[in-house]
């Protein structure tokens, strides 16, 4: 519905532009424009809660035999409200490949994979496809469960360093769970404030836990209780996770800022438990589909204190310069200023010569600007990198890099000798020697004649 409204809006806008281009009086044009905008924007602005920063085409893949979509209507409707255009692909008995790309272009921006048991799925969507979709800008939400963990999803997650327990391994807990292995986590805590706001959640969970490896791109979100363990329901001696080494939900952000969330329980999203889990699920999926915690740089610059840029006058050692950067955050509907106090600027040549914590300066509608204030370049020539490398778990990674040469002083940029007080001693001695020498030569030449006469006499 939402998308339909958007299309209507686009149509009206186009109409308005056409009307305007007919060179009607500008007053009339403005009136028409504002009126139509007001009429059509009002209902929309109340409807749209949030929308993804990079794209709204979302594909839902589910197993017909395992998942009844009606049980997840709350979750899916919530997505629709957040402007997602959902397409569905049921996995059944056919084995036609699922294409995520047409040529080089992505067909979808987001991908939701429900637990899938069908063996055809492995051939329909290969691990390589999943990986390339994920590393080329697609956001992914993978839901697995002990009943449905297809090999391709498992291997894909393994490549990311997440190891969900295999099929038929259930997470058990004699303290929090009931006989159906349903866990009631009354004090579920989010581990990352950017993914899911901190606080205690009353969650209901039934499913699997995963082991996570140590790589820094993984953001653990929900940890298994200390008293829990995942065990094979068929061979009860095999244990996959024990205690808090297991994780129930985890997030992953690639170096190219694409995001993935994994949850090891299907019913976690169901209507049945939405009263408990709804808020957690909403926050987690908002993060995964880039509806929040998305930041970007609107540009960085550096220049001399006077305002002259590098191109006008290249930097030399000890010049005073200032570095600025603007950062924006996606708040769900538009770009707004991003505020933080831990953004650092580095001036580096292999190693950092400076590391300065940036201070907020100006604020515009879209961005918050940060500045280093004046600082003087090191007394060392070389090719330096002006770098802001802001990587925080849960936020988009920002790397702003500019490589510039800092030259040495030119031959006429040093102090002249007489400007250095220490040199006065030497200057005095040099000039006194010169003066005395000139005097001596003068005197010698003028007083020489009578002497030569004397020596001549002696020789004779």
């Amino acid at each position, binding site marked *: 519905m939402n998308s339909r409204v958007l299309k209507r809006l686009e149509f009206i806008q186009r109409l308005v532009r056409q009307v305007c281009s007919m060179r009607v009086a500008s007053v009339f044009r403005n009136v028409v424009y504002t009126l139509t905008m007001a009429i059509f924007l009002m209902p929309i602005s109340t409807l749209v809660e949030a929308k993804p920063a990079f794209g709204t085409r979302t594909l839902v893949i589910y197993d017909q035999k395992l998942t009844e979509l009606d049980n997840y209507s709350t979750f899916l409707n919530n997505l629709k409200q957040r402007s997602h255009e959902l397409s569905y692909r049921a996995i059944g008995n056919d084995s036609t490949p699922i294409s995520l790309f047409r040529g080089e272009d992505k067909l979808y921006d987001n991908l939701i994979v429900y637990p899938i048991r069908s063996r055809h799925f492995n051939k329909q969507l290969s691990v390589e496809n999943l990986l390339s979709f994920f590393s080329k800008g697609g956001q992914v939400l993978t839901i697995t469960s002990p009943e449905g963990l297809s090999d391709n999803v498992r291997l894909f997650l393994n490549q990311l360093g997440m*190891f969900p327990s295999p099929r038929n391994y259930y997470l058990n807990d004699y303290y929090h769970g009931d006989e159906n292995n349903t866990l009631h986590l009354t004090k579920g805590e989010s581990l990352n404030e950017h993914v899911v706001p901190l606080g205690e959640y009353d969650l209901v969970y039934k499913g699997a836990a995963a082991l996570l490896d*140590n790589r820094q791109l993984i953001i653990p979100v929900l940890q298994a209780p200390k008293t829990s363990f995942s065990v094979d329901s068929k061979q009860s001696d095999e244990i996959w996770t024990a205690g808090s080494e297991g994780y129930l939900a985890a997030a992953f952000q690639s170096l190219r800022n*694409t995001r993935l969330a994994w949850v090891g329980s299907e019913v976690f999203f169901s209507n049945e438990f939405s009263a408990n889990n709804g808020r957690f699920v909403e926050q987690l999926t908002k993060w995964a589909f880039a509806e929040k915690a998305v930041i970007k740089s609107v540009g960085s610059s550096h220049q001399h204190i006077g305002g002259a840029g590098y191109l006008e006058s290249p930097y030399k050692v000890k010049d005073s310069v200032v570095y600025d950067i603007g950062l924006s955050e996606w708040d769900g509907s538009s770009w707004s200023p991003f505020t933080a106090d831990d953004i650092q600027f580095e001036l580096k040549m292999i190693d950092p010569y400076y590391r300065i914590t940036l201070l907020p300066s100006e604020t515009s509608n879209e961005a918050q600007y940060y500045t280093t204030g004046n600082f003087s370049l090191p007394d060392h020539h070389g090719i330096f*990198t002006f770098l802001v490398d802001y990587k925080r778990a849960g936020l988009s990674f920002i790397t702003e890099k500019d490589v510039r040469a800092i030259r040495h002083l*030119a031959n006429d940029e040093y102090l002249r000798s007489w400007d250095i007080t220490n040199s006065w001693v030497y200057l005095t001695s040099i000039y006194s020697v010169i003066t005395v020498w000139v005097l001596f030569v003068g005197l010698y030449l003028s007083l020489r004649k009578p002497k030569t006469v004397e020596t001549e006499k002696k020789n004779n």
Partner: protein
Amino acid sequence: MATSCTQKHLIRWIQLLLKCTIFLSLTAAAISSRLFSVIRFESIIHEFDPWFNFRATKYLVNNGFYKFLNWFDDRTWYPLGRVTGGTLYPGLMATSAAVWHGLRKIGLPIDIRNVCVLFAPAFSGVTAWATYHLTREIKDSGAGLLAAAFIAIAPGYISRSVAGSYDNEAIAITLLMVTFMFWIKAMKTGSIMHSTFAALFYFYMVSAWGGYVFITNLIPLHVFILILMGRYSTRLYSAYSTWYAIGTLASMQIPFVGFLPIRSNDHMAALGVFGLMQVVALGSYVKSQVSWQKFQTVMIVSLVSLLALGISGLFALTYFGFIAPWTGRFYSLWDTNYAKLHIPIIASVSEHQPTAWPAFFFDTQFLIWLFPAGVFLLFLDLKDEHVFVIAYSVLCSYFAGVMVRLMLTLTPIICVCAAVAISKVFDVYADFSIFIRSSSTEKPALSKKDRIMTFITKLTVCGSFLAYLVLFVHHCTWVTSNAYSSPSVVLPSRNSDGSPALIDDFREAYYWLRMNTAEDAKVAAWWDYGYQIGGMADRTTLVDNNTWNNTHIAIVGKAMSSPQDKAYDILKAHDVDYVLVIFGGLIGFSGDDINKFLWMVRISEGIWPDEIKEREYFTPSGEYRMDAQASQTMKDSLLYKLSYHRFPTLFNGVEGVDRLRGQNIRQVDIGNLDYFEEVFTSENWIVRLYKLKELDAVGRDLHAVGDFERGTSRGIKKRVAKKPLLDVRV
């Protein structure tokens, strides 16, 4: 009388005309024999260093002298950069820029590249002229003409001055001879003007070549020997004092030299002799004033105390660091093993190796055996200027034996001495006047039989020497055309049917680099190719032939000798985008990186002895091999992988034959290249370019990515998932 006077005039005119003709033809011979390279190949800059000089000249021409003087080059030695304006000898570039501007002024706009290519041949003519004047001062103008002819075509000098060999030496040898010529004139006459000229040309020399230190030491040595021989004179005093004062002050104006003349040990001899000169002058004044006995005591006491004071002062100043200690290059002049042990970077340069004895014959042919004869003849009448030539000969013979490149400084004096010897021979044997005169009224000095015998002897000697001269010309032409005219950027070769072909891989690869990579791409290659990459491909390099920073070179060496994952980290830390290696295994090009590899290992071992060990690159039996027997460290090293990557696919895919080393290279040993991807390989595989892969987006190490893509991880694809062995997540 009047007739004889006009006759003399006529003879003088004819002589002048002859001289001019001879000089013109000498210059023509000198220039034309250096043009082989242009005719065979094209007007192209040769080798390595000339590419930098050429690039610097272009910078000078485009940006003017002020910017050139303060040039900070951010395209080399990334990320350190190089204060190029302050660390080069600007004489060569300044001269060719002046030539270029001058030609434009007179309406001849010539491409700066052509000025640079033809620079060395043009200056060889001037060298011949200067050598003529020098030798004329030593003996006479006949010897001078011979010496000029020799230097014009001697291969020892041509090796560094063919067209396209745009190197500092191209102008430096000319300046060397001009400076010496003025010095001899000044020393003979005591003329302040001549010694000022000597000082000015010395300054020019300082601005053009680091080898100026040779003059700085040779002239004082000459003076010192003269003083020891008791040949002190006021002429010597005025010549040397003028030369030293003006020359030193002038040389300090070159930014690269700066305060070296008063701080470096290499220059101390000149300063010491200057001091000694003052003392000796004072002594001779005192001697003229007081009696001999008194003077003796004064002299002994003052000499001993001066000597003690001087030596202890020198030691003290060196110890406290006021005077820079001797440089490594200097030490390696005395101990040929010094560099190999302590400064591998100096030893790694092929032209710093000791000379093989055939090189002397190759470079100077029959002059080499006339050279001692000439020196001996000079000993016979030991004039002051002869002492200079003898000192020069002895010093340079030694140096030329130690370092191949110093052959260049020896060649001029060989030419001079040989010319003296030959002209002496001709003075005696080519004098046929007795046969012409004796027919007149005078009584013949010899009997008829003796006369015939003398005639035959003279004819034989003259004839054989003429034959030697003809042979010499042939030899010079042959050597020049076959050995010294290859630009080494383009390699001559033959097709299978014997027709000549050119191997143009270097330019092909550099052109590819220039056209297909980002303008600020950084290329890591061994330092030999730094200047070429900068000059031909116009890309930023990490290290180049100006080997001023040993550690930085060692970094590249370490990357080349490390396994690929470590090398990747090192290169990535230096923002490298491409790696360039030279590989000669396919066509048997001997100057490739694997042959230089031990130097990379040695140089990096000097900095990181714990990580890189030369021994590990040899087989257990101590051989340097690339085939199946090669050590694991060798097989793991980046250079091995980059050189042989995909090589066996040219053969049967399992084993390739390295034609240069005659060894079989197995695909198993080469393994997979996970951190780099091949982007370009030239026609004959001489130049191979690799790009550093991007970091994996999902944080795997690139080896794991490679394994995954090759499907070796299919093991995990089995139904049963195994619990991974992980570090505990903290």
